[in-house]
């Protein structure tokens, strides 16, 4: 019983570790996108700015499109990457049967 318990535990923690790393990767991607467009396109003289949908291009890409892209990625991660699991140890028995 105890053996089985530990195996289950390792398994759940392994999933949790993977999901934490996904969180870090997403934050790094988000930062690079945000920084790249803001300072890549925003550093020229304001007179030379192009405008998209009324906003300066650097702001549109970095903050508006960037936000939408991140929301899309979060949706993808939630839908296809994250695993459902019980948090309570009491529920282990029934769930083990299901997942076995």
């Amino acid at each position: 019983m105890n053996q089985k318990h530990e195996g289950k535990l390792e398994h759940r923690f392994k999933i949790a570790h993977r999901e934490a790393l996904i969180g870090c990767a997403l934050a790094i991607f988000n930062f690079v996108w945000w920084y790249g467009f803001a300072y890549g396109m925003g550093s020229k003289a304001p007179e030379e700015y192009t405008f998209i949908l009324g906003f300066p291009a650097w702001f549109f890409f970095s903050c508006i499109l960037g936000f939408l892209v991140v929301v899309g990625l979060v949706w993808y991660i939630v839908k296809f990457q994250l695993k459902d699991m019980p948090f309570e140890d009491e529920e282990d028995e029934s769930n083990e049967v299901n997942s076995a």
Partner: protein
Amino acid sequence: MNWGVVFPLIIFVIVVFLVGIWSNRKMAGSKSFLSDYFLGSREFGGLVLAMTMVATYGSASSFLGGPGAAYSIGLGWVLLAMSQVATGYFVLLVLGKKFAIVTRRFNAVTLIDFLKERYKSSAVVLLSAVSIIVFLFSAMAAQWVGGAYLIQSITGISYVSALFIFTISVLIYVVIGGFRAVAMTDTIQGVVMFFGTLVLLIAVVIAGGGLNNIFADLMNENPNLVTPYGQDGQLTGLYVSSFWILVGVGVVALPQVAVRAMSYKNAKSMHRALLIGTIVVGFIMLNMHLIGVFARPVLPGIEVADQVIPMVALDVLPPWLAGIILAAPLAAMMSTVDSLLLLVSSSIVKDVYINYVKPDATESLVKKLSLGVTAVIGTVAFLLAISPPELLIFLNLFAFGGLEAAFIWPLVLGLYWKFANKYGAIASMIAGITSYIGIHLYNEQYGELLGVHTVTIPVVLSLITFIVFSLLFKQEAYYFPTKNINKSA
């Protein structure tokens, strides 16, 4: 008094009260008072969880001056504020499932409970409790001042009366409802903020004659307003990036955020909260700060930054709508205060009193004490806010960064690094807090050290200290217990 504005506001406060009473009745039927009062019995679903998280992140940003800063600095500040989108997914993914499982096994109700079980060290517990009581109390008392100013600017009554109304509303509501009441109102407020900022943004754009007009006006006034560099070109990429630590990823270590990461019902609500939270926090931040920038050509010459949103709302919207929308920031402040109040009182009651003074306190004594301490702290905050002492404002200025520097590594490494031990945790907390205070004082005198926000260097320093001291006093690897600590022998 402008009843057209005040009336919807009062309706909102009454709704908030009813929610508190409803939550309280629900609590009467639950098993553990502590877990319920401070954590809502870990039963929050996706929407409530997302909204209470967002309301808590929002408090870190309203602290930054938010829309008022965007009004004077321009799009550069909106860019900075968008670093908060990361909080929407980062906290839940990083603390995530492991924290949820482990805190259940530890029967942990607060961040300190977790640290106490993980490191089994009185020094860690006392250092944490002192940081929370000092820093969070100051942060909270300052919100008290903000809430009173807001009521004052809407209704026109005197500051002390406004403060009194604010205190009474907050206290009644938090004392009768606990964490569940706070989370439920966070949800109402989140929804109001979500639609409110959108309506206000649209109204401001129309009042300014469309986006093209607004940006042309801004360029005419000062082209720097539409660059990422601020109105005087003062914001460097490095400095703005360092806010990713203060209001982005570092938020993971705030005790009021960590406690919410213990409160979800199951993995499904956590998943839903991830998506809702990211959308809502990004949407509100974007709208709220854009309103600040766009308000500049519409309503030039506002001197006090905190008045930007109220003045613009009153200017561009019909009174009843302005009343509802202004209820949102007021509500946001109330809920921030409520959740901080709960944390400070839980630190005093649980972490200090039950741990060190009276470990065998009965359930009913704990209950009376929690309510009593909450009421006393609220009253003290009221008295301090009547004429805010300088120390309070000073402490509030760096409360959030200080808490992040103190808690981030003991929490994150404690959760994910098996060689993390109490020596590392103690050294890291001391290094984080002292270097944060030191650099804060230095930066006030001489400008930003290395061109980054105050919080950056202490976070790096406390990481190094944590690892060095953990390895220096290396003990055997730590493994989390495999079942609930009360049930295993």
